[in-house]
């Protein structure tokens, strides 16, 4: 097999050196009754060209080059090409976790830069070297608050991404933490009055997302006040990282749990993504995940090391802050390079373009359908309610190579035929105009709704 660097002669020589007659000798510790004596049921060995062909077919079946109006926690932004040029270097791609600091300074210094930039963007004092994704980062942020306050209950906004809340529920149930869900008002923001009633002396934290699942920016100050006056912590989840270019970060938060996928990580059908936790310095010892710190070597030279490792599983075992070991270093490096490319001015300009495209789209949709939650400020997502079933609308759009907004009935049944639409800097005016016209067809038409044509490929 071409990945194996041994000739038959090498194998012979090695067996001889070991004193084994055949390779079977080395597998004799496995009881005979379990030894597999048939081939595994996997496809036969393929040539490299066959492998590429096989996946090309899958790529074609997966609808390439569609105009994309989906967001909802995964965002389609342009990825500058040097991201892949750099992360594909073998020294980054095939490097191990930087436990041996002297020969991992490349990885360590870039993580230190990543931590620094996340702090700058989120308004927090310290950030970790990544968690699995935004959903688990939000959950780990909540667990941090529980450890720090010693309290049991969690208050979470219903305007937080439904799948994030599902993940939180999975973790919370098993550690016996009641979850109180707080609804939203017609503004699309969390219901502050309901929040007041839901937060008390047993509440460890309030978890919100901003911009929230509907794209609406929450009133973080007001929410922080309610949480803090009850001695609860505020955990803010950010799913669309690009928003930090133009939206004021939640500086009153105690913990920010981010998804950095928008910063140069491919959509990739849902993963790998890049979660991050950022918080205040005083909470650092309760923060999960790897941390890189600056120090000096024996010659006084600046260097970087993994630090505060005693929080982690390999030392504390059952008392660890989290069980996390492998994190998302390579995708964090993509995010790092993205943030470096756009930088202080570019991130703001990028965010402004997102804002502009979305404002235009919302306005256009507003001519044919009902755009919900227009009273509060939004970033790059908005909710459109149509009289026609959004699934039918999306079928029609697919015929024009457009992937429409996410129908929300499954998550928010009371919103009926609502769908969540997202525009980024990559969304063209053309696509917006075509989409709104197609949506408008049924909304404006007096004809009975047509048969939905089968989408062919």
């Amino acid at each position, binding site marked *: 097999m071409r990945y194996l660097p041994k000739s038959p002669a090498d194998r012979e020589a090695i067996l001889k050196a070991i004193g084994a007659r055949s390779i079977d000798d080395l597998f004799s510790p496995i009881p005979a009754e379990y030894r597999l004596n048939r081939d595994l049921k996997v496809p036969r060995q393929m040539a490299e060209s066959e492998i590429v062909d096989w996946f090309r077919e899958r790529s074609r079946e997966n609808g390439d080059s569609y105009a994309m109006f989906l967001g909802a926690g995964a965002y389609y932004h342009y990825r500058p090409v040097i991201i892949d040029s750099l992360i594909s270097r073998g020294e980054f791609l095939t490097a191990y976790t930087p436990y041996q600091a002297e020969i991992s300074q490349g990885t360590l210094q870039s993580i230190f830069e990543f931590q620094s930039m996340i702090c700058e963007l989120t308004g927090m004092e310290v950030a970790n070297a990544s968690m699995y994704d935004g959903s688990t980062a939000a959950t780990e942020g909540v667990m941090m608050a529980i450890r720090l306050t010693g309290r049991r209950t969690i208050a979470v906004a219903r305007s937080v991404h439904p799948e994030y809340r599902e993940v939180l529920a999975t973790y919370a149930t098993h550690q016996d933490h009641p979850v109180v869900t707080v609804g939203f008002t017609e503004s699309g923001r969390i219901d502050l009055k309901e929040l007041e009633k839901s937060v008390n002396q047993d509440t460890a934290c309030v978890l919100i997302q901003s911009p929230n699942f509907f794209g609406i920016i929450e009133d973080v100050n007001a929410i922080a006040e309610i949480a803090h006056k009850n001695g609860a912590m505020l955990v803010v989840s950010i799913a669309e990282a690009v928003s930090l270019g133009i939206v004021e970060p939640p500086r009153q938060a105690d913990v920010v749990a981010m998804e950095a996928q928008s910063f140069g990580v491919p959509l990739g059908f849902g993963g790998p993504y890049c979660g991050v936790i950022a918080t205040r310095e005083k909470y650092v*010892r309760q923060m999960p995940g790897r941390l890189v710190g600056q120090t000096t070597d024996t010659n006084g030279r600046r260097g970087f090391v993994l630090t505060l*490792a*005693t929080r982690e599983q390999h*030392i*504390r075992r059952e*008392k660890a802050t989290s069980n996390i070991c492998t994190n998302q270093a390579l995708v964090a490096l993509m995010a790092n390079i993205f943030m470096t490319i756009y930088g202080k001015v570019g991130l703001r300009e990028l965010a402004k373009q997102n804002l502009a495209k979305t404002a235009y789209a919302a306005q256009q949709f507003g001519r044919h359908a009902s755009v919900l939650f227009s009273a509060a400020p939004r970033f790059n997502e908005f909710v459109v309610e149509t009289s026609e079933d959004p699934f039918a609308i999306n079928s029609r759009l697919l015929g024009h190579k457009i992937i429409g907004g996410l129908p929300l009935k499954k998550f928010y049944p009371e919103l009926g035929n609502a769908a969540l639409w997202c525009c980024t800097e990559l969304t063209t005016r053309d696509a917006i105009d075509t989409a709104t016209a197609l949506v408008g067809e049924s909304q404006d038409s007096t004809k009975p709704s047509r048969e939905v044509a089968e989408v062919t490929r």
Partner: protein
Amino acid sequence: MSYPADFKYTKEHEWIKSDGKNATIGITTYAQESLGDIVFVDLPKPGSEINAGKTFGSVESVKAVSDLYAPASGTVTEVNGELATAPEKINKDAHGSWMIKLTLKNPGEVNGLLSATDYEKFVAEEGGH
């Protein structure tokens, strides 16, 4: 290695100095040597109850964490704030760096602990110096 005669000791390497009503607790120089450079000490807040034989905090080096076991039961009255910013004081002078002060619940508990000589013997057997 000399261990102050007016302290009592536990097999988990804590020392306790008691006057019958109040006591001061720290860790022995043997403990700090085994741990190496101490980077952080996690201590309970004043007002907390601690119970003999149970953990009341922990002490960390770069690569290890050790639990602190209470030599006696009582209520914590004072915590050594210096250790929060300079935990290395324990390495420099373990017997002179107190961690917590407390009012004893059962002063008699202290009598059952090891004397300096007994502790020294115990440590020598454990493969110490």
